[in-house]
């Protein structure tokens, strides 16, 4: 069956009685797609639907022609089988594990332990977090935690990367550097990266395309420069 490359989502999530909290149709080719919109516009719900954390009422979620969710015929691929690297706003680092163990956690169990350790270490080095390897998250600064969370996400060879405002606690220079790094890694992996942000600068620096969301719906899709500068866009 011919299919569009990348992610293809068309879902509705009901909000109590009548109406939808999310009614969105998006597609995201390999590269960075920015989800931009005010808080409460459904960006996080959309990420949760894609990862399988929230089950839509109707619609479908497909990646590279593989269906992850379909309301008819009924299909719902388990979260752990989707291989989605999800960097949460709260980072969700495992507090009882070192940075090294956090990063290793996402690497397939079939990889031998030594190779797993080496891959995790390489990912930490890439995000300038190798000095944190033996430390636990309670001792990290906000920016350090974010680097470890990114290292964990990219170490797992994901099929799709979802970033929920991962750069918010970083200073400007580091943010610029990591934005560039995420962009390079995403290009290398050739997988879709969906990046939620409120920052226009970040959206412009990272995004190949932008999806503007409002009230649970897609308002516009297109080139970041055109949508965020020429039309004024939303947010900071």
């Amino acid at each position, binding site marked *: 069956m011919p299919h569009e490359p990348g992610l293809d989502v068309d879902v509705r999530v009901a909000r109590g009685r009548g109406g939808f909290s999310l009614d969105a149709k998006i597609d995201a080719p390999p590269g960075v797609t920015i989800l931009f919109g005010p808080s409460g516009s459904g960006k996080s719900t959309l990420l949760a639907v894609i*990862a399988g*954390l929230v089950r839509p009422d109707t619609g479908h979620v497909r990646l590279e022609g593989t269906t992850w969710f379909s309301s008819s015929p009924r299909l719902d691929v*388990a*979260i*752990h089988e*989707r*291989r*989605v*690297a*999800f960097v*949460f706003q*709260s980072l*969700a680092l*495992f*507090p*009882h594990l070192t940075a090294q163990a956090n990063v290793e*956690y*996402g690497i*397939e*169990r079939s990889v031998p332990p030594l190779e797993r350790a080496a891959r995790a270490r390489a990912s930490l080095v890439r995000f300038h977090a190798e000095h944190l390897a033996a430390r636990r998250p309670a001792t990290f600064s906000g920016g350090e935690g974010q680097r470890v969370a990114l290292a*964990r996400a990219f170490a*797992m060879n994901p099929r799709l990367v979802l970033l929920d405002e991962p750069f918010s606690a970083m200073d400007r220079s580091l943010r610029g550097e990591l934005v560039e790094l995420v962009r390079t890694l995403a290009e290398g992996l050739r997988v879709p990266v969906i990046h939620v942000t409120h920052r226009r600068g970040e959206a412009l620096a990272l995004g190949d395309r932008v999806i503007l969301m409002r009230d649970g719906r897609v308002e516009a899709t297109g080139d970041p420069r055109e949508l965020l500068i020429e039309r004024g866009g939303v947010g900071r």
Partner: protein
Amino acid sequence: MDLEPLFLSLQVATLATLIATIVGVAIGALLATRSFPGRDLLDVLLTAPMVLPPTVLGYYVLVALGRRSAIGQAFEAITGTSIVFTRTGAVVAATLGALPLVVKSARAAIEAVDPILIVAARTLGATPLRAFFTILLPLASRGILAGVMLGFARALGDFGVTLMVAGDIPGETQTASLAIYDAIQARRDGDAAGMIAVLTAFAVVTLYAVGKLGERRRAA
């Protein structure tokens, strides 16, 4: 001091705590993470042993597991011995004492773990079972351990249900609590004193350790 009742108590309480831990953590996790019909009822039923008079609880156990009950007869057909008025009965009685403490602690400890961590584990490729054993259980372990220790102390000291279900057979089901009662009744206070001292010391040490576990948990 006759040490046999003390050793028997330790043996019975250890086995009871082991059973209560496995069953209690599983049920605690179920209550903490899943919503299902009858959840509140299950919670009430599991808490009931803490507040029911031991004689009432003992009566229910006799009805459910006695020699005329279906379970009792099946057990006897397989093992050749009955559940009630044997050590098995003493273990059942002690397990019922420990179980609510383990369930309550496990549930509270598991509920205190941030659910986003389990979600994160799942997105990182962990099956629900792997997420449970590698994230949820280690993070809830101190709370669970506190419940297990309290459960063990409770199992060690059970009197009423044990008397109803297992009787007071010296060398077979006469645990330390029962032996103390017998000794006092027979005015052998000296025999009772040693066991009283051991059980008291054990209870004090357990409560102190549980308190310390709680402090470290709050500090973590």
